[in-house]
């Protein structure tokens, strides 16, 4: 049983949905961004989820099962680690939130555990997902194995080639990996295919979206499941530093789920500086980039009104990044709002900066990050922190899946 304090805390969390501000309002808007721009074919599914998600996820028994799995299966809480040598090098105080140590190697599993439990409550028997880097695909295949549900993962053909180890892992976990052959053959196209699958299978299927994107309630639901990251940072930092709030929190942004979870409990704490790092690819103005905030305009992608890379005619353009997980032409609606409102500082890191930062983290701290995560660490070449600043960086994932890319890049 949960105690009175926990219940009050849960009630407070649940109400965040009606608050607006930096959180989603009832219709899923963050400022002008969000909503549910979906064809009628998806309406019953999305509406079912919208009506029930809060009720389901704040139920005692759900919370208990969710927290138990996060603890015993995922291995949470993930450590908050003071990075000594990195701090020394950049003359500031850097803590790393070790999502790379989670089961399956990234933050993605926090969300898939939550959503598979929701899917079960809704009586769904078939799970679909999209994946870019394959981390979300692996995290989905994992929870499907855990729960004995059928799993189909859509993945761009280009990503299947550059993230081969994760493709093999998904197969080993019993999932079927279907290539997305249209467009740039990356994350955007995999998402299109997953949505089409959901249109074709509206009754028995739940779509586990892997980032804080898509139609309402997905961005809010994914954020809530990922918010365990900032919840833990608060008490961990309190233990280590005697204060809950750092001066800065930093995360890389693809669709924005690790960022949303890392920011969640700090959004309403104005003294905490929020920093987002997007993928600049070969450079913001080279035409080969995924820096959505710099290059995008308000538009609609995958059922959501948000910043979007597009032509003047409203056609979605093909993004580019060396990291499959950041190779997305949009960004979650929360982040569009954080950008537009000025609540967060947005930076972008090039392929080269991210790779170099990844190598540096490996050699200073003995941690090989995912290339996505390398982008967050490139913040040090863009921003100088003060010596007594406490900077928490979301170490969203480990680099095992990227070894081939690192090998090719550094000629290892």
């Amino acid at each position: 049983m949960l105690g009175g304090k926990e219940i009050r805390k849960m009630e407070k969390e649940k109400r965040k949905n009606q608050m607006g501000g930096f959180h989603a309002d009832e219709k899923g808007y963050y400022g002008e961004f969000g909503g549910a721009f979906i064809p009628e074919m998806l309406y019953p599914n999305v509406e079912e989820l919208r009506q029930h998600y809060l009720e389901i996820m704040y139920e005692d028994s759900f919370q208990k099962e969710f927290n138990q799995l996060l603890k015993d299966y995922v291995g949470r809480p993930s450590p908050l680690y003071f990075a000594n040598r990195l701090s020394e090098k950049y003359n500031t105080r850097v803590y790393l939130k070790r999502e790379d140590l989670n089961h399956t190697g990234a933050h993605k599993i926090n969300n898939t555990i939550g959503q598979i439990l929701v899917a079960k409550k809704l009586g769904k028997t078939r799970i679909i997902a999209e994946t870019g880097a394959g981390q979300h695909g692996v995290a989905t295949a994992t929870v499907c194995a855990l729960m004995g549900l059928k799993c189909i993962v859509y993945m761009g053909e280009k990503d299947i080639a550059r993230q081969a180890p994760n493709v093999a892992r998904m197969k080993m976990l019993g999932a079927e990996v279907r290539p997305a052959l249209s467009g740039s053959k990356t994350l955007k196209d995999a998402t299109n295919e997953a949505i089409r699958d959901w249109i074709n299978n509206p009754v028995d299927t739940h779509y586990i979206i892997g980032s804080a994107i898509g139609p309402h309630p997905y961005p809010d639901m994914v954020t809530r499941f990922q918010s365990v990251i900032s919840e833990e940072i608060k008490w961990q930092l309190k233990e280590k530093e005697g204060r809950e709030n750092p001066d800065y929190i930093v995360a890389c942004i693809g669709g924005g789920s690790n960022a949303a979870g890392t920011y969640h409990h700090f959004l309403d704490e104005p003294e905490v500086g929020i920093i987002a790092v997007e993928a600049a690819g070969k450079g913001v103005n080279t035409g080969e980039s995924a820096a959505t905030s710099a290059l995008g305009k308000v538009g609609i992608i995958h059922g959501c009104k948000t910043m979007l890379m597009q032509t003047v005619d409203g056609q979605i353009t093909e993004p580019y990044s060396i990291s499959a997980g950041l190779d997305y032409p949009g960004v979650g609606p929360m982040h569009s709002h954080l950008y537009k409102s000025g609540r967060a500082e947005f930076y972008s890191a090039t392929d080269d900066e991210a790779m170099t930062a990844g190598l540096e983290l490996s050699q200073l701290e003995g941690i090989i990050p995912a290339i996505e995560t390398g982008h967050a660490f490139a913040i040090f070449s863009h921003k100088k922190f003060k010596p007594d600043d406490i900077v928490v960086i979301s170490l969203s994932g480990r680099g095992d899946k990227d070894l081939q890319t690192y090998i090719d890049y550094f000629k290892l």
Partner: protein
Amino acid sequence: MNRINQKLNSEGKLLSIYFTAGYPALNDTVKIIQDLEKNGVDMIEIGLPFSDPLADGPTIQESSTAALKNGMTSEELFNQLKDIRKTVRIPLIVMGYFNPMLQYGVEAFCKRCNDIGIDGIIMPDLPLDVYQAEYESIFKKYGLINVFLITPQTSNERIRQIDAASDGFIYMVSSASVTGSKSGFGNEQGRYFERIAGMELDNPQIVGFGIKDSETFQAATKDTKGAIIGSAFIKHLTKHGVEEIPSFITTIRP
């Protein structure tokens, strides 16, 4: 009265054709529309291509990609259609996804449609509540009928809502599927068509998705006012070119 409603009030079952503007070649648009009218088609959905057509199967995805590559844009389409009412009298509907319309400017888009003589709009991803809250007055100002979709999964309650919000016809998606699915019509469609017929809606229904020949056209229009053919027509264009439009129409309605 809007040309769509005049047509809906006429006798008989309506055959409507969807095609992707700018496909097979950029400047085929006007010829396709004229030939369809000449061959007895009752209404046309002119597809404005989109890079990421979520509700479409491979055929319309591919024709959209090709059309965009050919250079089709909203502006280009409006320019191609500017004299269309000198030669074409049947109702014309622009069908597409909402983002290109949003970027053009919803009001500017509606105004251009009205100037040209477009009668209606179908934007599957512009949801009912957003339409009513933000755009209905603009559509009405320019005399455009907005057509909503329903599917076998749509609840009766929502169908009533959509019926109340509609002023033309309801686009009945035949099955839970994206466009161009191969399966024909079975018992499930039969029950769905009967259920909707039994609701005695204010707006007539026109069935779309999965209609490809005279058999599926007959089945789809048994309890409804008409049917829309898209992917099958585009496949015909791909295979036989724009000169062979009559042979397609005669296989549907001899």
